[in-house]
Each structure stands twice: as structure tokens, then as C-alpha cells.
């Protein structure tokens, strides 16, 4: 049963502050859900996530798969009748899900992590290296094997990293970020 006592109003305040959006403006019209191209893959539709935020259901919101799968395509933000930046709210939920250490959509999280690791190391993303690392860590080796011939034939991937000269400058950005603590 969902009792009002389960509501964490600090969660509401935190989401509002970090996203700069007033969730009370959402009147649950479902426009975001209606136009969301990723909805078919979600466990919880976007408008229901907004509802969870409004009613302070922190765990329900942060444990959803949806926050990880959102493609940030901006459909919801562009069409919301109340001018709410829903996309930004989804990003904030993703940040908070990461920080809370809750497990969800491992592969998506892993992809983001390997991407950023590559950027940190080389200054630019070294696509081949990143994909190899992802494949190894996700166990998803065979996934796009059928594409390999085309990728190779067309030389779509470079097999040597090309770090920038001042790659340390980029490494330092990450370092300072970790030291400052997020936010």
C-alpha cells in the first residue's frame, strides 16, 4: 500500500533544486509519455516518473529502468504544455540514481562509463578501444558481430588511439570533478 508516510518531500526539493523545474506545475496530462519514442522500452512511463517525484517516492523513481534508457531526445521538453524541462528532470534522476548506487540497466551505465574513461585517457573518445572494453566488461561480444565486415571494409574505426597533445588538461577536469564532489 502506498501511504502518505512513505513520501520523502526532501526528494522533491532536491529534484527541483538540481533541475530548476517546479514539478507541481505538472498536471499529469501524459503528453510526455505520448511522444516519448523510448516508452516501449520503459518499465515506468515518463509521466508516472514525474508523478513519483511529485509524491516524493524516491525509491520508486530512482530504481526505475526508464531513467537509464532515456535518450535525451527532447521530445518531452519541447512539447510540455507547462513548459517543464522534463528531459532535465530525467537527467537529474539519472545523476541521483548513480549517486545512490542503485543497480539498474547495467549495460547503459557501463557504456557511459567506458565512453568517459576513454575521454579521460585520450582527450577524445577512441571508439574502437571503448567498444572493445565495453564488449569485454558487458559480456556482449557477439552483439554486433554481423556489422564487423562492413566496419572493417569501410575503415569506419581507427585501431590506434590518437590522444590530443594536452590530454592531461582533460584528465585534470575529471580529477577536479572527483575531488570537488559532484554538484
Amino acid at each position, binding site marked *: 500500500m502506498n501511504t502518505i508516510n512513505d513520501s520523502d518531500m526532501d526528494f522533491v526539493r532536491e529534484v527541483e533544486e538540481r533541475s530548476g523545474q517546479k514539478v507541481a506545475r505538472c498536471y499529469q496530462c501524459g503528453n510526455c509519455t505520448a511522444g516519448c519514442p523510448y516508452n516501449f522500452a520503459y518499465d515506468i512511463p515518463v509521466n508516472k516518473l514525474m508523478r513519483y517525484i511529485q509524491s516524493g517516492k524516491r525509491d520508486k523513481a530512482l530504481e526505475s529502468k526508464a531513467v537509464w534508457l532515456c*535518450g535525451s531526445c527532447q521530445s518531452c521538453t519541447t512539447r510540455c504544455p507547462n513548459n517543464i524541462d522534463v528531459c532535465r528532470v530525467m537527467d537529474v534522476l539519472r545523476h541521483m540514481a548513480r549517486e545512490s548506487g542503485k543497480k539498474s540497466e547495467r549495460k547503459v551505465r557501463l557504456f557511459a562509463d567506458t565512453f568517459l574513461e576513454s575521454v579521460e585517457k585520450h582527450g577524445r573518445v577512441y*571508439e574502437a578501444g571503448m567498444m572493445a572494453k565495453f564488449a569485454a566488461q558487458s559480456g556482449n561480444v557477439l552483439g554486433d558481430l*554481423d*556489422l564487423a565486415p562492413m566496419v572493417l571494409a569501410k*575503415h569506419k*574505426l581507427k585501431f590506434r588511439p590518437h590522444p590530443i597533445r594536452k590530454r592531461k588538461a*582533460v584528465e585534470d577536469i*575529471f580529477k577536479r*570533478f572527483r575531488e570537488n564532489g*559532484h554538484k
Partner: protein
Amino acid sequence: MKKTTVAYYPGCSAVGTSVEYEKSTRAVCDALGIQLEEIQDWSCCGSSPAHTVNHILSAALSGRNLALAGSMGHDTVATPCPSCLINLRTSARKIEDPKLCHKVNALLEDPCENPVEPKSVLQVIVEDYGVDEVARLIRKPLNGLKVVCYYGCIMTRPPELMRFDDPENPMAMDDLMEAAGAEVLPFPLKVECCGASSGIPRKDIVMRLSGKLLHAAEECGADAIVSACPLCQMNLDLRQSQIRKEGYISKPIPVFYFTQLLGTALGVDKRSLRFDKLVVSPKRCLEKISG
């Protein structure tokens, strides 16, 4: 011929999976007299992964490049990739915000002040250069090739941030392709997401979303799809065989970068437009163009 100079941010795919976009962009800008001054030692903007981890980190990764562009003395930095563009613009907004500026600059070696205006290459051509000017330079019109223009989900959205064209029915690429002599068909899913970076972690999402786009293009009767985004092009082109297996389309449909077709119409040397990099063969279309 009009002369324009802008700072240029290629983006990571330009040196990787979308080399043909990079090369054809340079070829087209050269033909038009738009000088692209590449930012020295630019770094990755962070793309989607960065903003899903933290907004300040993402802004800083882009901010480094804005700072570099700023020191080049131009007031615009052009990029062919919409993902880079939205990150650069978001970062610029944060840096202009007195409440957030110091948070972003705290992560940077060289702080950024007065960020330059990031724009897409398409925007520079259409807005700053002008479609009429381009039309004057067309040497080899595209002979009525039937195309649909696919902009991708973030090039014009959200409108308050991207400030370019229309968020539901943009016409910039349509106008350019029409000036280039193509027959541009109305396309209802111009800004519908292709699946973006879900390709590797969640292939099923790209299958469905890009499948829907390809199906719509086929329904419209297009010979080809014209794109302005490296990720969209990759999903629609590289993965087309996988999508076709799912039954979304009955025959292959090539996916060009708009710069490749525009370059052809401007009479640029075909070799610099790198048609060889396209996975779905553009042969039939190229034959139709040359008549």
C-alpha cells in the same frame, strides 16, 4: 562568392565513424568560401554520457573547447555534430549564468568567459551564408532525386536552447536540397529520435526507432534519406541491414550526409565527398543524379 570565417569543432565521430561527413563538410565549405578554422587540440565534448553523469562535468568538458575557440578571435564556432552542438550550447548558457559560471570554470585549467556562439554547420550555411547564395553556385543540380530530410531529435530542440529553425518541421536542409535540385518530399518524422547512443547497450531500441524512420521514408517514396548527424546516419546506414531483417523496409535506402549531396551539386570533386564510406550502396542514386 561570400566569404565567412568560423572556428570549427569537428567532434570525435568526425575522426572516427563519420569521416565522410567531416570530409564532405570541408569540401562544401571550401567551395562556398566558408573558412573553417579548426580549434587547436580540441577535446571531446562528453557527448551524451557526460551529461547523464553530471551537468557541471559535461559543461566543463565542452567549456574547455569554448575557451579555446574564444581565444581564436571568431564569434561563432561551427560543428557538424548536433550532439556536440547541444553540449557546447548548454555549456555556453551555464558559463553565461553568474550562478553557475564559477562551478564550471573551477574544473578548467583555463577558465572560459564570454563564450562564443556555437552553431551547426547547416545553420552557418543557411543563416549566415544564405540559401540564395548557395543556389547561385550550384553547377550540377541533383536531377530531381527524391529525398526526405532527417534532422534528428536535437538539432532544433529544445527551441529556447538551440534557436535554430523550427522544432517540429525544420526546413533548412529541405531548402538547401531543393536549391541543389533535389525533389524534397514532406517527411512527418523529421525530428523523431533514431535511438541515439543506445545502439551498443540496447540494440533493440535502435532497431525499432530507426526502423520506424526508414519505414516512413519508404512510405513517402524517397530514393534516399539526407542526414545532418553522425549518430543518426550511423544508426540508419550501418545498422540498416539489421533493421531490414526485422521487416521495417522492403528494399535498401541509402542515407547521405547533406554535405555529400550539396557537394555533388556544387561540382566538388566526388572523391572528396567519400561516398565509398557509405554502407548502403548509393550507386543507384548517384546514377540518377548524373542522369
